[in-house]
């Protein structure tokens, strides 16, 4: 048993070393922790189904929900797509750690890029009126006697475009989005919550020493 765990430990360490070279913001030690936690998540997932090489959509979304408090279905789906860079419907260990580096330690630029990708539903490098409409739908409590329930949202989209669409082409390009967010940071998560809440990051449990998981996990080894 101890032999296996020793071997495990060694592979984890090499893996961590490799990944930490490719991923920003995390030290090797931190990556090690993340790998271990990823393995725990994988184990939980495999218990209930066939073996895959990464987190599937369901597990990923429930993880987002339970650990990061992200509950908006419209967004969590998009977050999965964004994490899953190679589009193979699972989030591999590398993708997971990559994504978390933005999630937890991302600079403003990285976050802008990430959020823009989440919001650009069809991947055409622009957020169109329709996309905004889709993402904002239902965010206004409907006025009972209004004829068009989406009228308010449509109006709101115009207000947003007026503010953020600097080149006046009727949609938000990445440059538009970037400029608007740099201008007013509040607009980072303009169309839906797709980053963990500040408090989750600051939470003692995910404190700086171990970026994400408690130190007690480390002690087990």
């Amino acid at each position, binding site marked *: 048993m101890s032999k296996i765990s020793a071997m495990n430990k060694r592979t984890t360490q090499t893996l961590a070393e490799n990944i930490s070279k490719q991923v920003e913001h995390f030290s090797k030690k931190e990556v090690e922790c993340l790998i271990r936690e990823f393995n725990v998540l994988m184990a939980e997932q495999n218990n209930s189904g066939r073996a895959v090489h990464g987190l599937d959509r369901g597990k990923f979304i429930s993880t987002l929900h339970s650990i990061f408090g992200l509950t908006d279905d419209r967004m969590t789906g998009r977050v999965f797509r964004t994490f899953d860079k190679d589009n193979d419907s699972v989030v591999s260990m590398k993708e997971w750690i990559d994504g978390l580096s933005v999630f937890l330690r991302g600079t403003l630029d990285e976050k802008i890029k990430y959020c823009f990708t989440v919001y650009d539903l069809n991947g055409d490098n622009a957020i169109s009126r329709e996309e905004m409409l889709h993402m*904002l739908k239902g*965010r*206004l*409590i409907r*006025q009972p006697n209004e004829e068009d329930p989406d009228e*308010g949202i449509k*109006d*709101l989209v115009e*207000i*947003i475009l*007026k*503010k953020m669409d600097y080149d006046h082409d009727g949609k938000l390009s990445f440059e538009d989005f970037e400029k608007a967010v740099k201008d*007013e940071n*509040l*607009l980072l*998560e*303009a*169309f*839906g*919550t797709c980053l963990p809440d*500040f*408090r989750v990051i*600051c939470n003692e449990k995910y404190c700086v020493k171990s970026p994400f998981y408690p130190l007690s996990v480390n002690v087990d080894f």
Partner: protein
Amino acid sequence: MGISLTRAAQWTMVSSSTAKLVSTPMNESLLKEILHFVEHFRSQYPQEAEHVFEEPLQWSTTLVASDFKTDYDISDSDVQSHERDSEGHPLLQLSPPTVYVRSFSQLSKLLHLAHDKKLAEVRACLEENREPLVKILGRSFASDLVIEAHDDAVSVVDRTKEEGLSKDLEVKVKLFQLFQDMDKQILDTLLKDISEQVRLNPKAVKNEVEILQVFCGGGDKGLLKSLRYTSDFEFSNGYRAPLWRQVQGDICYLVIEPCDTETLHITCSTAGIFLNGGIKQEGEENGYEQTSDTYEDLVTLLKSRSPHFAEKINQQDSAVQELSTKKEKTVNEQLQLELHTTRRNIYEPRPSGILSTCGKTEENKTLKSSEDEHKNLRQRAKSKTKAELSASSSPGHVSSQKLKTSAGALPGEPFSESSTESEEEEEQPYRHPETNTDLPSEYWQIQKLVKYLKDGDQIVTVHTLCAMMDFNLMQESCQMAIQDTGALKVLLNLLDTDEHKCEIGSLKILRTISHNSQIRRVIVDMRGVQSIVKILDSPVKELKALAAETIANVAKFRRARRNVRLYGGINKLVKLLDCLPNLASLTPSQEEDIEVACCGALALWSCSRSTKNKKAIRKAGGIPLLGRLLKSPLQKMLIPVVGTLQECASEESYRTDIQTLGMIKDLVRNLSSDNDELQMHCASAIFKCAEDKQTRDLVRKYKGLQPLVSLLHKADNKQLLAAATGAIWKCSISQENVTKFQEYKALEILVSLLTDQPEEVLVNVVGALGEFAQIPANKAAIREFGGIKPLVKLLTSPNQALLVNVTKAVGACATNKDNMVIIDQLDGIRLVWSLLKNPSADVQSSAAWALCACTENAEDAGETARSLIGGFQLIVKLLSSTNNEVLASICAAICKIAKDEENLAILTDFGVVPSLAKLTNTTDDRLRHHLADAIAQCCMWGSNRASFGEAGAVAPLVRYLKSKEGSVQRSTAMALYQLSRNPNNCITMHEKEVVQPLIHMMGSDDEELQEAAAGCVRSIRLLYMANRNAELFTFRN
């Protein structure tokens, strides 16, 4: 007459047939005007006066047959005039009690006959002839004229001429014109009367109550213990009284607990403010009746009821000023409005005079000052004009029904109407100064956003907030839109959501709009301060900074500051200051900390204007933190930090801490900053702290004197100049500093600042000169720089603080003979002397000290003194002052003045001896010193020595010898020496065992003291010897 009758006169609200004119001052003057008009009608317009009325005016008169004289046929009680119309009917007919009159000449005559009952007759006439014009001119004519020719009567005259109508008609038209002119005249006079009346409205009352509430509580320091409405419910028109009382004009009821008298129950009504029988809660059927005079505002009433309030309110200068200006504003606006509406009523093309077309219902509504009408002025006017136009579009077809309504209509309308409207309007010009009727487009845009703000989730809310931030939130129209549309409430609610993005957005808006004072008040009223203070604990630094910044804005008035303290804000703000301000390299997080500390300092600066907050900041350990921040290189940090420190330096404890914690060095360093504001606060802090000697020395040590002098060159910035001169003044109290200042040529600049400066600068400049002039060389220097003349000129200033310093400076300069010559030439002695009349004790004593110097050094001071009428009486009178400093200074002055024998004689005549003797029981050494001097000097005349003895001055003087103070001992010894020349005094002294201390003093090093003591002992000894000799002599014989 038409309009004024129907619109201006106030009728009782009984049914039309028996309506009476209410006896109000306004109706009185109206009647007088009409009387005057009718009386002089015959002489002014003889032709028109003969015109026979279409129908007679008839009313029950108090005149009887015997009152009529020639020109009348009298048979029994009936009277008929000689004058008759073309058909032979008499123009005046009396069949008691009714009289029928058919021409103005007869009317005039009748009034002439009525003598002192004239007014009663006019009143009866008007009351029973509700439509005089219709009767005089005929119904069809009146309506014709009204509709077609109201605004252009002349053209009608022309037309009637063209059409060759009868001369009769022409006269009618002329008459009508006369009535019109008369109408305008009367209304104008009435308007003037109204303008003088103060009419209250709910807005004005509310304002006043709010302002007073700010000053409630706080024990003895507050104006009142409490002030509250009886009802929390406010109707949409701003009234709080129950509806059935609103009809009577009641606006609201207040229960006020003053600090010194029993609880007051107060009714605020449109007519004024008065005490009622004690309305505690709405619905209680207890005394709505008035139990006091009516006052025009709450403050006046309270002043008359509560002496404590009256005293305190005078101290609350700023607030009262604010209050009164505010009130003035509302009153003014209202008046303007009334004038406006009423004028329009006059000039509008409307048949208002005779045929008031307004339906009864509408008038009823306005009379009740009906509430829920939120039409704006123009809309309303428009709709009315429309109604009138439609009415007048059917000329000649004035149905009897309409006439009935007009007769039964409730007049007095223009006034009640304008007062209701003014309630709404009065706010609007205030809120939207640019436009009276059209709201700016921002208003509607913001209103739309607010809808989303209320309905949206977090994401939408953030967008809405961002969109709102894009408006120019410093613009008042936007601020008001945010308040009006309820956005402010939502913004404050967002602060409690825990969604930090929403909180950030909300605070970003709040920190901007809270520059508006009205919004600040609303924020505090909505308990916004609690929420903002709570955010100071947030882990998000940006939020903390924003919250602190918002507090900095909101805490501009007292109630807000108190709220910040009560909710623990001071402690939290002080915690924000904890950062490392002067590290060479900073991490982003440390930079954020500094930003937060900056905002915290800003907030503390605002809060520190309240004394209790100063104490709280100190208690929370704020001073060392401020001291640490003082080392920061950032100006944006230094300004609020130094601002707070200088604000707090009014407290003794802060001054000590500033000195002991080594902040003087940093303050001095920042005097050389390139920012005027920072320099000003530093100078001002030094000004306040330099009362203390060690601080003054520290300023010198850290080389702060030179930068202070160089600040004097910034003569354009008066605040900076005031602070810098203040610091120089206080620093120059130390002579070493004066020497330093001389090196920097401060004196010359200071002298040049004696002219054309605001008082706060002058006070400090003169104060500094007074200190500089303590050094003899500077006295001459001040003269050489031409400083004497402006100084003497300032003796006529009304500012007491300035006068204290000026007299001190003049006194100091006067010890130089050459200066004295100039002062004398400029009539300075008289000016100083006249300052003894100043009510302020400080000025009195300061002037008396200056007088000493002047009297001592002027050539013919004795004569000058005598030439001042009443001067000696004044001085002797001041000996009954209760202020020891005044007494000491006056004694010193008496001592100098009495050196001239003639003056002493006059002083003696004015009773200086008993006045001085009365003071001898004092224990104040300073006073004892000068008092003994004065007594010694006054002994030089006539029988004054004996008088002092008789007045019982000797025994207390002997006690002075026990004083430790050398000056007191010396003066006392001299006084005793003088007094001892009177044998009775010697006996008293001897009884009080004077000899032993005197003998002790003879051993003193001070020769004068030696001599005086010895002289006194000698007198006593001589008396004893003489006595013994006498005894021996008697014995021998």
